[in-house]
């Protein structure tokens, strides 16, 4: 055996402990950093991912349901979840996350948040991924165009560009019903609305609540059509998190009874809710 290979062998023998020690140190560091989940007592007790806080996943902006005003996130959904938080005796903490993580339920499964409040329609597909509270808002899809334009239906947009928001019911509706229309996908509502306003797309489809709100604040745009989709918004919780879902339902029910809900509705939409 040559001198070189002997050296290599010694080299290798003594280097293994170094490598394993480093690996062990890294694993130890990683596990030491991971925080534990709050484990409450009985099965009916509400468990929170971050103790003392009701963590909400949402996707900004979705005015007037949730959007930034100065240094705070405000809106109809925010106020509604605040009621739930108050009933639980905790504060609400809001996390802004891409919408696909919300509607696939993965944000909830991954323990990123306790509930999702994102102006989200209850759909059969989403119900497979997460559990919804009782409905707290009724919505339909609507079409936003610039003032001078007259596209009043999806048919009129043939050969034109229609802006949609990624992973939304509006996108689904457009895919199904807008034949021969070129759809352009945007990641959030803010980008979609700006695209309509600047003429990057000829029209945008989204929920009526947010589009009417935008048209009111931006007189160079208008809503020309509503498609009667009869959608219901729900707050989402992780599949099987019945304790929190029951608490949300209780709070919504209470708020509808004692007039709190109507007051919030008026505050953010300027009208009383239709009954």
């Amino acid at each position, binding site marked *: 055996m040559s001198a070189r290979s002997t*050296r*290599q*062998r*010694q*080299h*290798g023998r*003594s*280097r*293994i*402990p*170094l*490598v394993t020690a*480093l*690996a062990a140190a*890294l694993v130890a560091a*990683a596990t030491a*950093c*991971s*925080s*534990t*989940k709050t484990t409450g007592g009985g099965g009916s007790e509400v468990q929170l*991912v*971050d103790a003392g806080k009701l963590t909400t*996943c949402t996707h*900004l*902006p979705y005015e007037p349901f949730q*959007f*930034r005003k100065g*240094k705070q*996130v405000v809106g109809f959904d925010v106020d509604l979840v605040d009621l739930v938080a108050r009933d639980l005796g905790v504060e609400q*903490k*809001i*996390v*802004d*996350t*891409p919408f696909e*993580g919300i509607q696939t339920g*993965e*944000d909830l*499964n*991954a*323990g*990123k*948040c306790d509930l999702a409040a994102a102006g989200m329609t209850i759909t059969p597909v989403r119900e497979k991924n997460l559990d919804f509270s009782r409905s707290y808002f009724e919505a339909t899809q609507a079409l936003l165009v610039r003032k001078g334009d007259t596209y009043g239906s999806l048919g009129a947009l043939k050969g034109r560009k229609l802006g949609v928001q990624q992973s939304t019911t509006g996108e689904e509706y457009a895919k199904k019903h807008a034949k021969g229309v070129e759809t352009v996908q945007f990641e*959030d509502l*803010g*980008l979609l609305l*700006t695209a309509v*306003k600047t003429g990057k797309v000829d029209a945008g489809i989204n929920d009526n609540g947010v589009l009417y709100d935008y048209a009111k604040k931006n007189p160079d745009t208008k809503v020309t059509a509503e498609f009667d989709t009869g959608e219901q918004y729900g707050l989402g919780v992780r599949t099987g998190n019945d304790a929190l879902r029951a608490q949300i339902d209780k709070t919504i029910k209470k708020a509808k009874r004692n007039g709190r809900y109507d007051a919030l509705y008026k505050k953010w939409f300027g009208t009383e809710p239709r009954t």
Partner: protein
Amino acid sequence: MSRRNRTRAVRTAQYGVLVLLVVAVALAADWSELRRAFFDAEVAREQFPDVVTTALVNTVVYTVLGFVFGLALGLLLALMRLSPVPPYRWLAVAYIEFFRGVPALLVFIALGFGVPLAFQVSINQYVTVMLALGLVGAAYMAETIRAGIQAVPKGQTEAARSLGMSSSRAMVSIVIPQAFRIVLPPLANELILLTKDSSLVYLLGLSMDQYELAKFGRDALNQHRSLTPILIAGLFYLAITLPLGHLVRRLEARAARAR
């Protein structure tokens, strides 16, 4: 035309093309629109001080966390890559090829959801960022460090061994310090890349006090419907990366002198 004249003519033409391009772009662009969109003083003022106290600070914190973890893991991988034990080498090569070949965006999404699902723990945000940025950075840094270790002359190890050092001691005290001296410039380069990759943190979901520069700029864009915050965020990235670039050049010059 003489050769010298021809050279001069070609050079003049090159300048001419450049001037023409600049003039054409300047004339074609709608400057009043651009000024309205990108240089809105009022919107710009509103971004302060949060763009510094929150966004810039978070970008730096995320980057440093990712870099430190990536450097440690990169060193480990480089040693594994050079290990005489074949399975260690295979693991290191597989790791490097995988994380170098997959977009950082996908790593962030997979890690943000995958780790909590796999281990049923909700992980601290900073730890997730550190892991995601570090895992990506480590793949590049491992190859850099390996090249550095191999660039240290063999005589160094041999001399250390003949002085009675064990081979791991020789590696830690003699080879690795010299290797790091060699790889400092490319490591600083990696730090610049990680600074920009930290913009992907938004995929993990952020509360407002966790916004970094890119997310901060996008959020303000949505809020004000003005591109000014994007410009400001970009300038702050440059405020980090330009000094780093300068540092890289200084280190390279020093390495060239030392050689």
